């Protein structure tokens, strides 16, 4: 099944799943409310967004310089930096580090880029299975599923689902009490933290000026992952670099509020090098693996480059009418929702349906909430253009000839008032044919896509022009 067909099938399956749709609506709705409340409390919110965008533009405009400075600083503090152009190279670096330290047990805190490079399966195949420690990620690891939301990866699972999963996989009595399930996670994962040979984390930000790695979280699993084991490995995309430590004042004001509606998350770890002489706690070694994996391709596309500014807050997902109906799994890509549509084709060309830039109403809600002011709709139009011109994955798009014909006809009709009125009359006559019981329930052929999931109302008997004319002539009656 090709990517396009699979995407369509996934979307249909999601739309036909009422339980999923209710859950998505509820969860995304609550995220939206929390974010809105947090933003209302900040009168200077727009100034912060502007500044964040400016900083990211600066960071990307001189990315090579900032990356080199970051490396220099990390090394000066006793850390090591490894560079990976591809996903495969990134995995090999991690494995090499693990092997060099005789690693048997490994814990991991949340890292989207590790999903992107399929790290877990690779490491498991080489005998070192990383244990996810973020509660949501651990749940889906136990379930053998992929994350469905960037901030709350297991949000598609009800408490009953999790209770059944824990009973099956951990042998505990089945319960749907969330406190009990959370305590079980604490108890079980504590053993892993305290015995792991290596801890891997992602990074929300990499500070060039000081060589600092920044991890934002609420659970404490990232703190434990990066403090207890003797080796700490950081996996980060090259776009995570920001120029100065002071820039964090802007991003840390925006990220927790955008992601979860908190003024500050429970924990932020700013880590600079392995533990110092005299410190008793912390890793003996720090390794940073910098990953390209298509980011330089995105960087080269000047009209799409701003997508690299993303700070992974998830706000765009929560407001997107498409995401809110189909959920993260339907995208089949690591990054879902509006930002997923922007970056996936460059980061995972082979695995991305060409439909993603088209799976949008261009309503712009995402652009309104993006903390770094990525103009997502404009970039989506640019990507659509690229798909149509064949620059991006060249999957055949069905009924392209019909679409061209329809657009030409529409352009022709709009070009003159006479043709417009004629077309309008013909259309009203044509739609009369398909009316059933006062609504248009099914259109023929490829137009059927418009009525597959909802009915169209019947057009009015008279057009606005007619009504206006009649009113002016004094002959207005009932419609």
């Amino acid at each position, binding site marked *: 099944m090709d990517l396009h067909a699979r995407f369509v099938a996934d979307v249909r399956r999601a739309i036909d799943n009422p339980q999923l749709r209710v859950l998505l609506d*509820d969860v995304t709705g609550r*995220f939206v409310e929390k974010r809105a409340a947090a933003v209302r409390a*900040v009168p200077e919110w727009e*100034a912060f967004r502007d500044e964040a965008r*400016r900083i990211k*533009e*600066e960071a990307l405009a001189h*990315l*090579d310089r900032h*990356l080199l400075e970051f490396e220099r600083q990390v090394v000066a*503090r006793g850390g090591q930096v*490894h*560079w*990976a152009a591809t996903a495969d190279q990134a995995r*090999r670096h991690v494995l090499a580090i693990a092997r060099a330290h005789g690693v048997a047990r490994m814990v991991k805190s949340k890292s989207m880029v590790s999903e992107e490079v399929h790290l877990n399966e690779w490491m498991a195949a080489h005998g070192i299975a990383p244990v996810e420690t973020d*509660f*949501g990620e651990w*749940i889906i690891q136990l379930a053998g599923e992929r994350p469905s939301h960037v901030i*709350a990866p*297991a*949000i598609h699972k009800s*408490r009953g689902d999790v209770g059944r999963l824990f009973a099956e996989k951990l042998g505990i009595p089945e319960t749907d009490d*969330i406190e009990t399930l*959370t*305590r079980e996670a604490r108890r079980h994962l*504590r053993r892993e933290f*305290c015995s792991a040979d290596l801890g891997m984390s992602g990074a929300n930000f990499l500070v060039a000026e*000081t060589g600092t790695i920044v991890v934002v979280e*609420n*659970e*404490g699993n990232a*703190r*434990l992952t990066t*403090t*207890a084991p003797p080796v700490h490995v950081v996996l980060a995309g*090259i776009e995570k670099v920001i120029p100065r*430590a002071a820039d*964090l004042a*802007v991003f840390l*004001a925006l990220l927790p509020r955008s992601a979860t509606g*908190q*003024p*500050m998350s*429970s*924990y932020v*770890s700013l880590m600079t090098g392995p*533990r*110092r*002489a*005299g*410190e*008793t*706690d*912390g890793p003996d070694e720090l390794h940073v693996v910098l990953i*390209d994996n298509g980011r*330089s391709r995105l*960087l*080269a596309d*000047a009209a799409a*480059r701003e997508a690299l500014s993303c700070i992974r807050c998830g706000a765009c997902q929560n407001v997107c009418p498409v995401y809110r109906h189909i959920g993260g799994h339907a995208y089949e890509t690591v990054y879902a929702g509006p930002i997923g549509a922007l970056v996936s084709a460059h980061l995972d060309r082979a695995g991305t349906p060409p439909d993603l830039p088209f799976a949008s109403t261009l309503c712009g809600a995402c652009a309104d909430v993006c903390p770094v002011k990525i103009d997502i709709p404009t970039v989506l139009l640019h990507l659509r253009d690229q798909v149509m011109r064949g620059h991006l994955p060249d999957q055949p798009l069905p009924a392209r000839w019909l679409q061209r014909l329809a657009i030409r006809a529409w352009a022709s009709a709009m070009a003159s008032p006479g043709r417009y009125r004629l077309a309008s009359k013909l259309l009203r006559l044509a739609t009369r044919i398909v009316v059933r019981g006062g609504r248009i329930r099914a259109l023929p052929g490829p137009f059927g896509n418009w009525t597959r999931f909802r009915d169209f109302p019947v057009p009015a008997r008279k057009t606005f022009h007619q009504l206006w004319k009649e009113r002016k002539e004094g002959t207005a009656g009932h419609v």
Partner: protein
Amino acid sequence: MALDDQRDLVLARVRAALGSRAAPAVASRSGVTSESKPLPIAFVAPGAAPGGMVASFTQAAEEAQAMVSVVESFDAARQRVGEILASEGVGRVLVSPDAADEPWRCGSFARGDDAPTITGQDQTIDVRRVRIARAEAAEVGVTAATFGLADTGTLVLCASPEHHRLDSLLPPVHVALVQACDLLPGLPELFDRLSAEQGFARHSAITFVRGPSRTADIELTLTIGVHGPCKLFIVVVEEVRRG
């Protein structure tokens, strides 16, 4: 080594990607210019609130489910710590050197652990294993905090030979001690201080702590106490004395 080759490759790709277009990159559709605007300071002006910085900090920290006590003197702080430990009814208390030393002098609260004090210099034992076992066995960890942020009620902990990271992380209860004079309005002031004091060069880890640990991963239902501490007590001292 073959793995190192990719550094030049990645840099070359980045330079090629940037070099093919003139910098500054994209004409900003948001209308933002490339000059830096002065950063708005704190969201709240803590000095303006009644009671000033301490009141703002207390309110913000309590909103994050921290339990805050404000006391006048270091003696009162020590007494308050004793009360907290008594109310928690615990047998094993770990006190980080920064809470045991001046000005806090809470070392006498350490109990339930007869092993000798660990220093980072110890070569004779597996420091890591002992430290983890000790912090994991403790029921309460008592540490100092270097700074507090008044606008969000956040503590700032700086790793050092005197401040042990695991003491505020593994035990289910964390008691944090902070001086009122070390409360700052917000992040911009904190980064100014860290910059002036070489903070990132001196500390391998600077950790912000706001309230106890939490998750909402199941059905977006907030649950307090996941992997980090389940309870956070903060004692703020108004007496000014540098340790």
